[in-house]
């Protein structure tokens, strides 16, 4: 009902502009604001890890081996979430692990977003052979299950932080590319693009100064939503042992380490699991409320 009323209005909403109205919509969504705050909290935590972590994440002591969380018998408030099988402080490792997860999530989405945006613009605007080549590549990559594709690449390149980023970017650009291509196809038939051609703008300048500003908000929204997915995949790779290598604290590795002691010491695996859950949930909900506020067209 409201949608028809809005579309009948005389002045169409400037689809991509970030205005005060957008901000107001965003702030009025309390749920969204809460989860955005949690997400930002994780980021702050990751940045400040060296100062806020109570202990060295890699300092272990067999005296504290599998020490339970503070509120259970045998626990102490010096190690609030308990210790793992090597006696390392779980809270400190979670705080440091946030760095890895968020760094990979954000960097992958940024690099893949840039590549995907460029290729999507080229495919959508130039069409023809460029479009066919890029679109077929996208189709082929989409036919692979993402995790298996990443496992295969990691198997070839070997584990390591840089390799995870490369492997994930190799796939992730497809998501942005597909979105940008579709949006470009929509925008490039607008008469203002033809007007730019009539003025004599080069194709590159039309793509970046006429089309891109009109689709960038959709790209930002989708990219935010993808951060959560990337974090899960990184955790999965680390869990499988082909991601971030010990002793670097990563949530996926922590879950894998605790797997063996699940019945005896549930806290070793559970707390990193809860951290992943909270981070991904807050990233997704923050992205969703961003989407609702900035790009109503994408709302289902």
């Amino acid at each position, binding site marked *: 009902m409201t949608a028809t009323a809005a579309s009948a209005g005389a002045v169409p909403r400037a689809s*991509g502009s970030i205005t005060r109205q957008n901000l107001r919509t965003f702030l009025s969504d309390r749920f969204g604001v809460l989860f955005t705050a949690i997400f930002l909290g994780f980021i702050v935590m990751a940045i400040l890890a060296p100062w806020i972590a109570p202990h060295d994440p890699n300092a272990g002591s067999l005296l504290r081996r599998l020490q339970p969380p503070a509120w259970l018998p045998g626990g102490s408030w010096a190690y609030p979430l308990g210790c793992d099988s090597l006696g390392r402080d779980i809270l400190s490792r979670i705080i440091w692990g946030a760095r890895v997860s968020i760094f990979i999530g954000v960097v992958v989405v940024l690099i893949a977003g840039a590549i995907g945006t460029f290729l999507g613009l080229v495919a959508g605007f130039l069409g023809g052979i460029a479009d066919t080549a890029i679109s077929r590549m996208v189709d082929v990559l989409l036919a692979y299950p993402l995790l298996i594709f990443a496992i295969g690449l990691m198997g070839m390149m070997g584990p390591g932080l840089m390799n995870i980023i490369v492997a994930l970017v190799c796939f992730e650009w497809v998501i942005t590319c597909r979105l940008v291509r579709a949006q470009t196809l929509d925008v490039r038939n607008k008469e203002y693009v033809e007007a730019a051609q009539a*003025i*004599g703008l080069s194709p590159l300048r039309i793509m970046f100064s006429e089309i891109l500003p009109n689709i960038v908000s959709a790209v930002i929204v989708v990219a935010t939503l993808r951060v959560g997915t990337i974090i899960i995949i990184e955790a999965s790779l680390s869990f499988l042992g082909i991601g971030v290598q010990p002793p670097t604290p990563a949530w996926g590795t922590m879950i894998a380490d605790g797997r063996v002691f699940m019945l005896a010491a549930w806290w070793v695996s559970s707390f990193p699991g809860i951290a992943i859950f909270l981070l991904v949930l807050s990233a997704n909900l923050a992205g969703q409320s961003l989407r609702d506020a900035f790009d109503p067209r994408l709302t289902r």
Partner: protein
Amino acid sequence: MTGAPLLQVRGVSRHFDLRNGLERLYKPAARSLVRAVDNVSFDVWRAETFGIIGESGCGKSTLGRTVLRLQDPDAGSIVFDGTDITRLGRRALLPFRRRMQIVFQDPYASLNPRRTVEDIVGQPLRVHGVGRAAGRQAAVTAMLERVGLPAESLQRYPHQFSGGQRQRIAIARALVLQPELVVCDEAISALDVSVQAQVLQLLRQLQRDLGLTYLFISHNLAVVGHFCDRVAVMYLGQTVEVGATRLLLAEPRHPYTRALLSAVPQMRRADRRPRTLLTGDLPSATRPPAGCKFHTRCPAAMDVCRTTPPALATLGDGRQIACHLHPG
């Protein structure tokens, strides 16, 4: 009408291939080609208003865009002020882009919603490196004033304006480089009737002040009759009759022009023409009829019309017509 025409269009065709990449491998081209513009020729003289009318889908807009090289013609040549611009590359075309501009139909789609008015109207100056920043701003302000927009519009965005005002912004953008030829592609069709009159008035005023030449594309016979010096009537991508507007409106010769004119409602009984009702629908542009393209709907069709396409002949009164009834 002295000297050479400003714009010479010779045998221009523009085809669209409806097949996708895979279909190109096995489907014959002939059945999937839309002949949007098919062998069209006309001249436009300096400072005149040349109208192009026809039903929707007859290729008017494609023709306008092809003339400006926004689309590339598949055949024929476009000569602007003595230079053949048909095959010029983007850079070689730049000096000509300065001299010919376009005003589009939909002022809601023709202005980039993310740019301010100053940005939109100033962009042609920046692209062509005209003047310095301060001089450019002065030129933009002057042009806005000329099209009747207040100077405080500069920092506003298109969505803050009404349709008529937006069209004024589009006109300002088209004129800021001081072009000679302006293609008005249904430039007033999307506006309210009262606003249409204002914008037409503005276009005429600008033509007088700046010596502009208009290529005025429209489906509105009343507007064309009022506004254009000469007019070309198009049917299925071809011009069927070209001549002075007064002549064509008073004495249409081509059966299609007659049918078109008889469809205009007249207030006074004495002005009414016998109504020529066309039967049937517009034929598909992918499979135009053989012979004269109009013969399927023509009330005066003869045998020859079904087999031989009529050539464009010039009559004694200067009009050109493609019809076997008027062999010249």
